[in-house]
């Protein structure tokens, strides 16, 4: 067992945990933050995407002890985030989800794409989401949702002169 101090969605958390606990289980079971999903637990499905110090991370491949003194952001922590809100609207409008299991990971990966690449084309979107598996939608709606969000964000930048 190890005592860890970390910041999760801007809240300080101190906890005694087993070294082998992965970050995803820690978030879900200890912190009650259940937006982060676990599908494969070996890096293949992308459902467990979170940010560690702002960097996109598979939380099934990080142990919570590794995040001592770091800042972790989950989907719950991005309620007020402009890019995430544009993506939420896009997913809603374009039917980007059915069961919703993959959605948190899709949103995290899509936000990461839009921050690095504000005007992605369809190929860019498909490549950036290649590590996120969806068993329901067939991906077409998801790809359209991300394109819609990117368009909305660049339109609003033009309008606000930014």
């Amino acid at each position, binding site marked *: 067992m190890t005592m860890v101090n970390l910041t999760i969605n801007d809240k300080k958390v101190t906890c005694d945990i087993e*070294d082998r606990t992965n970050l995803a289980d820690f978030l879900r079971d200890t912190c009650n933050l259940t937006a982060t999903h676990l599908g494969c637990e070996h890096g293949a499905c992308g459902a467990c995407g979170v940010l560690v110090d702002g960097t996109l991370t598979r939380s099934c491949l990080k142990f919570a002890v590794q995040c001592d003194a770091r800042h972790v952001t989950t989907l719950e922590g991005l309620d007020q985030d402009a890019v995430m809100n544009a993506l939420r609207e896009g997913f809603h409008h374009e039917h980007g989800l059915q069961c919703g299991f993959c959605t948190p990971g899709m949103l995290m990966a899509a936000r990461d794409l839009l921050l690095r690449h504000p005007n992605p084309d369809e190929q860019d979107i498909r490549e950036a989401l290649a590590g996120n598996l969806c068993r329901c939608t067939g991906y077409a709606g998801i790809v359209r949702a991300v394109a819609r969000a990117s368009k909305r964000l660049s339109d609003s930048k033009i309008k606000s002169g930014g």
Partner: protein
Amino acid sequence: MKPAPFSYARARSLPEALAMLGADAQSLPLAGGQSLAPMLNLRMTICESLVDIGAIAELLVASETNDHVTIGAAVTHAMIEDGSVPDPAHGMMRRAAQKIAYRAIRCHGTIGGSVAMADPAADWPCILLALDAIALVAGASGERRVPLDRLLVGTYETSLQQGEIIRAFEIPKLPPDARATTCKINRKTGAFADSIVTAVHNGQKSRVVLGAAGPRARILENASMSMAKNINGAALDQAISTDIAGMLPEDDAYLKHLHATNVKRAINEVMTP
């Protein structure tokens, strides 16, 4: 699945990491964890203690001289993709990094971890072998220089001893007129290669390396010689098939064809101006 219990400690410096690994024969270094964590989760690897080397500043630096670039072992695929470190191969390493796994994995997975893991289909072992890289390996009794060809042994097997850490790779810069490419065939974006080839060509020197065929990446000697002599057509095809047949553990027509196609594609890219 969940991993079996282990203990974890973060090392702050290279000497501290070497001491921690030296004190426990059952310990392993943990860099990005993008191979080790899945192996632990699937219980394909059992390890009693992990020494986290991912935050050691010495392993994160990159530098260059007139003739080579040194890249720290804990430099991530994403740092290479983003051009945050110098590229000794005219941008080829940068382009190749974009094709490794997915961004979330590239942000954590390291060049040192990838070589130490020695997956036969991994990208960096193939690329670094083609670029004549030397691994700078730190151990209890100092540092040794190990050319990639002697570091890579077999499937998930290197000549690293327990307790040793790759500190960095020293990679010669390609001359200005050299051309280099990496061609990767995989059925899904981000997956490990079904075939991976790095080809380098300039006036004096030519080299083509194939990975994902047999236990480790290898230089294709006959094909490299043919490239240097500007031989093409049927003679080049013959050289390529001889090399591939020597690498593949079994006589599989599909794999022979797949690798030959990829090797020809790479050679063609560097030989056509």
